[in-house]
Each structure stands twice: as C-alpha cells, then as structure tokens.
C-alpha cells in the first residue's frame, strides 16, 4: 500500500434493495484517507446508512466495489473476519446485548480474536476505563444512562483495535451534553490513536467536529467539503498505554 492510497474507497457503487423501487445508491464514488474524520450528511432516506453498511462490509453493492487499502473487499475472503479485525461499528440505538453486563458486552467481538478468556476480560476492563466507565463494569445496559450505553458501545467497537470506526447517527438518541462526551471521545480516538472515523449524522454540530463533510441526496454525493487539513497521524497508541497511565486519558 502506498502512502497516497486511500484507506477506504467506494468505486461507482450502486445499491437497489430487492423491494425498493428507487436506487438507494447511484454510481457513488468516495475515497477516505487514512486518519481522516468524515461526516456524512443528507436528508432521511438519502442512502447514508446504506453507504455506511457497504463501507463496513455489512452488505455488498449490486455494482461497483469497495476497496480497503487498495484491495477489493472480496479479496479479503471472509467478510465477517474482515469486519472483526478492521471495522468498529457504533449505532444510533447502541445495539448492546441486554443480558450482558458492560464488561461482557465489550468482550463480544473478541471471541473472533486470539485472546483467552482472562485476557478478554482484562482488555474489556481497560477499554471501559478508556471511555470513563470503570465504575459501571457489572451494570446491565438497562441500568446505564443512554450516554453510558453509547460509551460501552464505543468501547466494544474498539475491542479488536480496528483502524476504522463507522458510526451511524451515534448521537441521535443523546442529549447535547452526552452527545458532546461521545464527540470528545471520537476526537480523542482520532487524535491519539490515529483512527479513521466515518460518522453519519443529521446534526451540524456533529458534522462540525469532523474534518470533512460529505453530503448525499438520492444516493449521490452532492457536496464534499474539507473543513480543515487532516493531521497526519504520527503513530497509533496501543490501548494498553492508556490503561497503564502512560498515554493521555481520552476522557
């Protein structure tokens, strides 16, 4: 992979849902550089979630292709494995498993990784410390505030140290203050760990925290604005560093 190669690229992707009369995405092309922080905006039904699902290998385009580090996704073999190692997802409605504690929810993606049970628990603990929830380890989602739930979900998205975080309206269910906590967390992940972030949002405030805003309408990009030059990430800070107090705390 050359330095100039985008981390992620959509090449003329089309998506028509089986029961949909209109195309959700039409010939859409988009490149996302390593370390970029992109907000995707657009009216309801414009295809934002569809695009995010394609970028995150949750779904496949009818035509066109998605490339990760220059390679088409289907060259990665198993898409589940691809997702587990390279993508962290954050959803509007958190999607935590209701019967698992915060600590256990964070461990869910790690089952596909190399860690043993004790190591999984240790790592989940460190991730929850990172998102500022070390006092909520044994709480079930139903006993957490919505802001705390979203932070558990973010910790879970980081479970396998993915380079890319995809968030679909992550603050859609949060009030302004907790939304800001989540955005601060995103900023820290972007700044300190050099993560690439793609955030779908309806909110201008959320979009303004990004470095680039892509606007979509009817499955096409209608505007692509850079708010500031992306910082080239110097290095990726392993999560361990935060937990052991060697790195800056994210919250």
């Amino acid at each position, binding site marked *: 992979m050359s330095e100039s190669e985008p981390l992620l690229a959509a090449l003329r992707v089309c998506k028509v849902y089986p029961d949909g009369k209109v195309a959700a995405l039409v010939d859409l092309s988009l490149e996302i550089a390593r370390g970029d922080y992109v907000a995707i905006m657009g009216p309801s039904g414009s295809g934002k979630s569809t695009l995010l699902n394609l970028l995150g290998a949750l779904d496949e385009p009818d035509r066109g292709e998605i490339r990760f580090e220059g390679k088409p996704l289907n060259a990665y073999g198993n898409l589940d494995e691809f997702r587990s190692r390279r993508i962290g997802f954050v*959803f509007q409605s958190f999607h935590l*498993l209701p019967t698992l504690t915060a600590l256990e929810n964070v461990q869910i993606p790690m089952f596909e990784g190399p860690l043993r*049970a004790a190591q*999984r628990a240790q790592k989940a603990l460190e991730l929850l410390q990172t998102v500022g929830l070390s006092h909520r380890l044994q709480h079930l989602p139903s006993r957490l505030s919505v802001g705390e739930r979203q932070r558990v979900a973010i910790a879970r998205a980081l479970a396998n140290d993915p380079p890319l975080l995809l968030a679909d309206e992550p603050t859609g269910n949060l009030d302004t203050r907790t939304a800001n906590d989540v955005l601060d967390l995103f900023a820290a992940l972007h700044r300190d760990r050099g993560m690439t972030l793609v955030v779908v949002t309806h909110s201008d405030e959320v979009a303004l925290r990004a470095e680039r805003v892509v606007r979509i309408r009817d499955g096409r990009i209608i505007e692509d604005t850079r708010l500031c030059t992306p910082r080239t990430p110097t290095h990726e800070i392993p999560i361990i560093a935060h937990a052991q107090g060697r790195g800056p705390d994210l919250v």
Partner: protein
Amino acid sequence: MYFLTFLIKNLTRRKTRSLLTILGVAVAVGTMVTLRGISYGFESSFVESFQHRGTDIVVVAAGQADQLRSDLDEKICEQLQHIPGVKTAWPGLLEMIDITRGTSVSSALIHGWRPNTPLFDDLTLLDGRSLQKGDPHEVLLGTTLASTLNKKVGDTIEMQQEPFRVVGIFRSFNVYENGGVVIALDELQRLMDRKGRVTGFSVVLEPAEDRAGTVERVCKEIETLKDEQGRPYKIMAQESKQYVSGTLYIQLAHGMAWITSAIAAFIGAISMLNTMITSVLERIKEIGILRAMGWRKGRVVRMILGESMLLSIAGGVVGVLGAVLVTRWLATVPEVNGFVRGDVSPVIMMQGFVTALVVALVGGTYPAYRAAHWLPTEALRHE
C-alpha cells in the same frame, strides 16, 4: 467471559422455557433408558439363568416363536443323554398360570421340574423344604411371589381350581424365578393336561477343548433325532445365548422398547426444534449485532447448537438419573418386580446420552442454519 458463559446466559434468560425443554429431553432419554434397560435386563437375566446352571444348549420345538407354546415328548430326554459329548440333559415345562387370590386372579410363571435335578441346587430355601418325589399338590413359591400373594409355608394357594400347599419359599439368582412357582414336572403335566409333554430341554455338555465346535455338532445331532417309528422330531437346538435373544418375549420387549424410545426421542427433538426456532426468531436482531461485530456464521451456528447441546446434556443427565431411580423403584413394585432387575447397564446409559446429543443436533441444526444465514443488515433492521 467464556463462550460457554455466554451460552448459559442466553439460556437462563428464558428460564421456564429452558427448564421445560430440559424436561422434554429428560423424559425422552428417561423413557428410552428405562425401557431399554428393562428389556436388556430381561434378556440378560434369561441368559444368566441358563449360564448359571451350565446349560449349553436349549432344545425346543422347531418353528415355534413363542417359547410357552413349544411342546415336545418328554422321552426325547433319554435320547439326548446318549449323544456323545452330552453330560446330562433335563426337561422343563413352563406355563403361565392363574393364581386365585380371593376374588382377584394374578398370573405367574410356573416351572415344572423333575425333583432331584440340579435345577433345585440353585434355589436357596428361605423357609420350609424342597419338593420331594411323589408329593402331589405341593409347590415352592419364589420369594417375590410369596410376598405379593402374602403366603407363608403351610399356606394354600389355588391354581386351576385346585388347592396346593406351599412347602417352601426360595430365592433364586434369577428374578423371574423369584416371581414364579416351582412344582414337580408330573404334577404340572397332570394339572395342565399335558401328560408326557414338556416345553424343552436343557443340555449340559462335557467339558471340551473346542466348545464352539462341540456345540455345533451336538446341535446338529439333536435336530436329526428320530422317534421309534423313524420319523424326525420337529425340534430345534440352539446355544443358550442365541436361543434367548431369539425368543419371542425378548424380541417383543426389545421391539417395544425400541419403538417407544424412538417416538420419545422424536418428540424430544421436536420440542427442542420448537424451542430453538422460537429462541432464534426472538433474537434476530441480536444475531445481527453479533454478525456486525464480526462474528462468523460458524460461530453463530456454534452458539445455537451449543445452546441446544447444553439443554440436551442437562436433559440427558436428568433423564438417565431419573431412569436409574425409576428402574430401582420398579424392581420393588410387587406387580412387576418379577420382571424388572433394579440395575441399568452403563452401555444403555451411554445410549441415553447419545440420544440426547442426537436430539440436540436434530433440534438445533435448522435453527442454527436459519440464524447464520440472515444478512447482518436485515437482522439489524429487525424489531
């Protein structure tokens, strides 16, 4: 967190449903282990009863599947004893008889034996004395039957409207004999109106180096025996073990046990299928989440199959334990204890566990397949 912990958490979410499914599997496994345990116990008791007395060969009428309907001339016994390699042979007459108890009637096996044959050596007299030659209207009662009928030495029982005096109460190594009556052969022949007729013969061979070969040769010779007019008897000689597994009652018992077990296992599998399908359908969204988090289809399959396995293993343990207890209890119930041994062989317990695993596979595979094949995006949209 272990993967197993996750599966258990999923199962404990619906405690009642999980417990009912475990119960379903337990009933299936328990039914199977109990019935097969009984039918195999039945067979091995019979085999033992021959082996214990050194019977190598059993001779009965040919072409008669029902042992109780075999009917042979008692005189064949003398011919058997003259075959080279035969140490001794004795006749036996076996009948099912009704014993009147006040207004009710209960059935029992009655064994007609020649007094002074080695058969009596295996009966431990608990009370009274053994049968003596020429004692009319005297019987020995097996200990189980004696307590069922509530009879003591000196009491009288009524069979075929004739009174018989109980002269002794015995315990045999064989549970069926414990549930039966022993009477002098000629008395039974008179009582049943079968003068000079017997059910079959037990043949004991001289010790030989090539036992299998001797058994085969003697069996052939027995089957070619002829009566005074030179006509062949229609008789069949078989090694005792082979004879037992071929008898109608053993086959019936195995067949019934098998069919009932199969039906029970089928119902168990259907209930497992129902549970797992319901469970998968109400978790579509969660399965979507797991897939979005990078879980492979294979892990989702392992999750669902793992859950059905856990239910089945729990059901298997409960079922086998239940079967062991029920079998022990059955052995103490007066109505059936002449026919049930109180133990279950480990092989049959293992078969019970295997059945439980089959139930898990049959009931879990389709739901697991369904769960794994949802598209992650479709599953996530599900409410």
